[in-house]
């Protein structure tokens, strides 16, 4: 790719090749244009950049480290490194774009932040950003996820956010987006929709990417400083794709680095049992943008499943859709079972409990390491797994127990 990549994609209409754009009701168009204009004028100002830099350092605790997994590498072969986004404040990469979006909202004079959440990580991060800036916050969350990710619901409430339960459809991430969009439509002037990933209508996929690029920029430098070279493989899980884009974006010009996105294969790759959008989807439009989409022949989004609530979405970021078509990134899938095994493996070999989303990336990295013992692998450990522990132990038991 060229150094112009970030200026070329998206184009001024929000397209990443054939994907992205803006498929929204007319009443939102003016506001999306306002956000786009504000993004370009405000977020490039010296004042904004220095405020965000200070937040990154003093509030979020950045840079997060790159860590070499000694025991895991010895066991599986290869050299496995983690970019430790689990050590970012609130325990996941989500705060990177939330602080950026909330800072922009503050400059724009917005009063309230609205978003959906799947695993609750984005919701917690946005509630944190809202508390930091003194803004109101309303988080829409499917009832199934509310039950599964209970600790995050409590965290959001402690932080002062209102959690709105969503009870239609499968009561998970897709429905939470529907609900948050509708709440946003009621008052787009005073509120802003801080979408949780590199999805939604233009300019969100671009904005969220820009705020997540810090992950890749740090990791590339850190890795080079540690090893004097670049990693052979870079691995990240893909729900909507924000943590993956954050990391990949720094390596798009490095042809020697292979990029791997990991999607959830759920219980199986049969319809309704997975959310492997890039592997099995067809181009379509959902939630205001064009992307690969799991859908039936009528264009209805398929039901999806993953053990990781944050990956449970029938669409995917438009930029990933393009990177797939350009063969710039390979997309693979990992089952629920492989994810759980990796969850315990990383916990017990390294003392790091990963989020179930991130455990998908770890699982794929372990496969890669086994197959390529001479190669190095940098994994985005996008979040920590505290939110998942009750669910995992209740559903799967401890390793070696009979559950």
């Amino acid at each position, binding site marked *: 790719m060229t150094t112009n990549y970030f200026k070329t994609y998206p184009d001024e209409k929000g397209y990443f090749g054939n994907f992205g754009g803006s498929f929204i009701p007319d009443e939102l168009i003016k506001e999306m244009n306002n956000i786009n204009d504000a993004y370009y004028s405000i977020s490039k100002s010296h004042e904004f950049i220095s405020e965000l830099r200070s937040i990154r350092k003093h509030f979020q605790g950045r840079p997060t480290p790159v860590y070499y997994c000694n025991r895991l590498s010895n066991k599986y072969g290869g050299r496995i490194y983690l970019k430790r986004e689990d050590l970012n404040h609130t325990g996941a990469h989500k705060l990177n774009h939330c602080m950026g979006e909330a800072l922009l909202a503050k400059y724009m004079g917005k009063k309230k932040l609205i978003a959906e959440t799947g695993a609750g990580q984005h919701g917690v991060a946005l509630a944190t950003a809202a508390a930091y800036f003194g803004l109101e916050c309303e988080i829409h969350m499917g009832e199934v996820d509310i039950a599964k990710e209970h600790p995050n619901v409590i965290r959001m409430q402690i932080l002062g956010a209102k959690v709105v339960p969503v009870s239609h459809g499968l009561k998970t991430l897709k429905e939470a987006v529907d609900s948050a969009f509708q709440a946003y439509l009621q008052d787009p002037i005073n509120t802003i929709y801080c979408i949780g990933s590199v999805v939604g209508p233009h300019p969100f996929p671009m904005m969220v990417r820009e705020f997540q690029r810090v992950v890749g920029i740090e990791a590339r430098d850190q890795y080079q400083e540690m090893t004097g070279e670049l990693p052979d493989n870079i691995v990240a899980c893909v729900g909507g794709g924000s943590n993956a884009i954050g990391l990949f974006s720094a390596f798009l010009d490095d042809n020697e680095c292979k990029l791997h996105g990991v999607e959830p294969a759920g219980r199986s790759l049969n319809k309704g049992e997975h959310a492997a959008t890039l592997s099995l989807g067809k181009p379509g439009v959902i939630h205001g943008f064009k992307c690969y989409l799991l859908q039936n022949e009528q*264009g209805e989004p398929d039901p999806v499943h993953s053990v990781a609530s944050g990956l449970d979405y029938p669409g995917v970021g438009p930029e990933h859709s393009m990177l797939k078509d350009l063969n710039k990134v390979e997309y693979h899938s990992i089952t629920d079972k492989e994810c759980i095994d990796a969850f315990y493996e990383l916990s017990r070999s390294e003392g790091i409990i990963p989020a179930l989303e991130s455990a998908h990336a770890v699982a794929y990295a372990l496969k890669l390491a086994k197959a390529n013992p001479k190669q190095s692998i940098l994994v985005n450990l996008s979040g920590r797994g505290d939110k998942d522990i009750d669910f995992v132990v209740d559903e799967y038991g401890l390793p070696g127990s009979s559950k």
Partner: protein
Amino acid sequence: MNRIDQLFQTKKKNILSIYFPAGYPHLNDTNSTLELLQKKGVDLVEIGIPFSDPLADGPVIQTAAKRALDNGMSLKLLFQQLENARGNIAMPLILMGYWNTVYKYGVDHFLADCRKSGVDGVILPDLPVEEYEEDYKAKFELAGIYNILLVTPQTTRERLMQIEKSAKGFLYMVSSLATTGGILHYDSKREEYFKKVSQLDIPSLIGFGIHNKESFQHASRFANGAIIGTAFIKALQAGNSEKFLNGLR
């Protein structure tokens, strides 16, 4: 001539348009509902193509769409139902749905089936006019199917002029509420917006928040008529749709 133009040429005031979802409350109710609407003198009908994630619709229409989908409703089946209905139905028919349904069906195929089953126009709230103009306008115009465009209080003057250029039939003037199903309130700003749009060269109907005779008549003062959706669906659900329609005029 397109039936929509015919209607607006012969009638200038109090045009009543009713929205209902296809295949609701039961799969085969589409045609009997159409017959009822015709009998009761409704001027124009919008038939909803059910979609599971309708961004512009409130809870009542969402729930109805879900029920229709569960009944087995699909765009393909709707075209079959309409082909049988057209013999008895003279009102202009407009399909309202979300872009992915049409995109997935195939735009050429969709337009051909619209013609075959006597559909006069479509409303696609999530297909912005820019996308329409660039990729689809020529096809719609060739097929003679009107793409009815929406304007809202948020629409800038500049954009309104762009929309007017591409608009056919009439403008769907979204009253104010962001999603369907609320109650419409009037103030001077809102009335100014209605006046601005109704001064254009193209007729207009007001929709979103119109729910009874009084609100219909009030809205009709600012446009050529109005559209009722959510309130009619509630009547269908309660089994008193005929009574509801009698009460509107």
